[in-house]
Each structure stands twice: as structure tokens, then as C-alpha cells.
């Protein structure tokens, strides 16, 4: 498996797990009450921070286990661009959604969570696109 494909797997798994833990904690706190009353900011920041730290640690571990970081070649760069292109579309969607929600004076809870969900979807779908390209093929001609 290409080193960059391993990195895509790490991003996918860590993003999904971090968001799942966050969602379980927040929904558990709400337990039937309104979600906008639930304290979420610290949990959200810890979830994002933990995902970043865990990703870095796993990348280092995989790099060491693979005998050092592999140099990116042409195929890695092209697949990376494809994944980033797909992932970034969700960042834009999240930004526009947050803008519209702010204009509609919606609670901060929903605005923050819309942006966080967009970040997660960006990471997840970008990673899936990369993994798919590595597994099923990627044609530039």
C-alpha cells in the first residue's frame, strides 16, 4: 500500500472516530432537552484538537514502520489534488451554510456544528476519493 494511501486511511478513520465521539457526548448530555442548551464548545475544540494530534502521531508511527516517509511521486500528487478538490467543495458548502445560518440569526450551536460537520465531511470524502483512486485506478489521459 502506498504511503499516501495509508495517510488517507488515517485521516478517514480518525475524522470519523473523533466526530462520532463528539456526537455521542453531545447527544448524551442533551438526553431529550434542547441541543442549543448543551455546553458544546470545549468538547468540539477537544475533539478537533485530539483528531489533529492523533493523526500526527499515527502518521509518525506509520512513517517509522515503513522505514521513513516515502517521497511523493507524480501519481501521489495527482491523487492528492483530486482528494483535496473534492474535500474543499465541502468546506465551501459549510462556509456558505454557516453564512446563511448567521444571517438567519440561528443559535451559535447550529452554526458551529454546521461548520464542524462540513470539515469532517471534507476530510472523509476527500480521503475516500483518494483511497478509491489508489484502489480502483486513476487516469489522467
Amino acid at each position, binding site marked *: 500500500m502506498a504511503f499516501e494511501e495509508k495517510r488517507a486511511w488515517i485521516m478517514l478513520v480518525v475524522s470519523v472516530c473523533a466526530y462520532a465521539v463528539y456526537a455521542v457526548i453531545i447527544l448524551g448530555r442533551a438526553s431529550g432537552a434542547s441541543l442549543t442548551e448543551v455546553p458544546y464548545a470545549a468538547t468540539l475544540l477537544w475533539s478537533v484538537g485530539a483528531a489533529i494530534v492523533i493523526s500526527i502521531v499515527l502518521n509518525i508511527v506509520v512513517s517509522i514502520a515503513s522505514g521513513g516517509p*516515502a517521497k511523493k511521486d507524480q501519481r501521489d500528487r495527482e491523487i492528492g489534488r483530486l482528494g483535496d478538490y473534492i474535500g474543499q467543495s465541502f468546506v465551501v458548502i459549510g462556509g456558505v451554510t454557516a453564512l446563511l445560518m448567521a444571517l438567519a440569526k440561528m443559535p451559535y450551536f447550529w452554526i458551529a456544528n454546521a461548520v464542524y460537520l462540513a470539515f469532517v465531511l471534507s476530510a472523509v470524502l476527500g480521503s475516500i476519493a483518494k483511497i478509491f483512486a489508489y484502489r480502483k*485506478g486513476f487516469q*489522467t*489521459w
Partner: protein
Amino acid sequence: MVKPTRVTNSIRALRFAHDELTQAELARRIGVTRQTVIAIEQGKYSPSLELAFQIAHVFRVPLENVFHYPEVP
């Protein structure tokens, strides 16, 4: 999502014809990873024109001896 390419190649045959050149050695000579050579051989990745020429140069054959495209009827 992935449109299958009509470009085929003879890299595997050429490797064996050149003292069983390994995928790793071919990868080293053209400056890519072994996984990329495998993907090219299997038709899962179409290399850039420059990389295609580099592969042909390793085998000292013209480009059309390495990569093939079916004639339009």
C-alpha cells in the same frame, strides 16, 4: 467515477525481456514508487507523457513499443 483507459502497455513483457528488471528497479530509475509502477503496469494509472518517455528510455525502445492505443476503425 474512474473512466477506463484504452491505453495498454507492454511494461511487464519489456521488464522480463530486460533481464527480468524488477518493478522496484524500474521505479528507482524513473523516480517513482514501486506502487506507481504496479499501477501503470496494471493500467490503473496513465503516467504523464514525460514519465512515459522515461519508461521507454529505460528499455531503449520507442514510446509506441511501450504504450499502445487501439486504431479507430
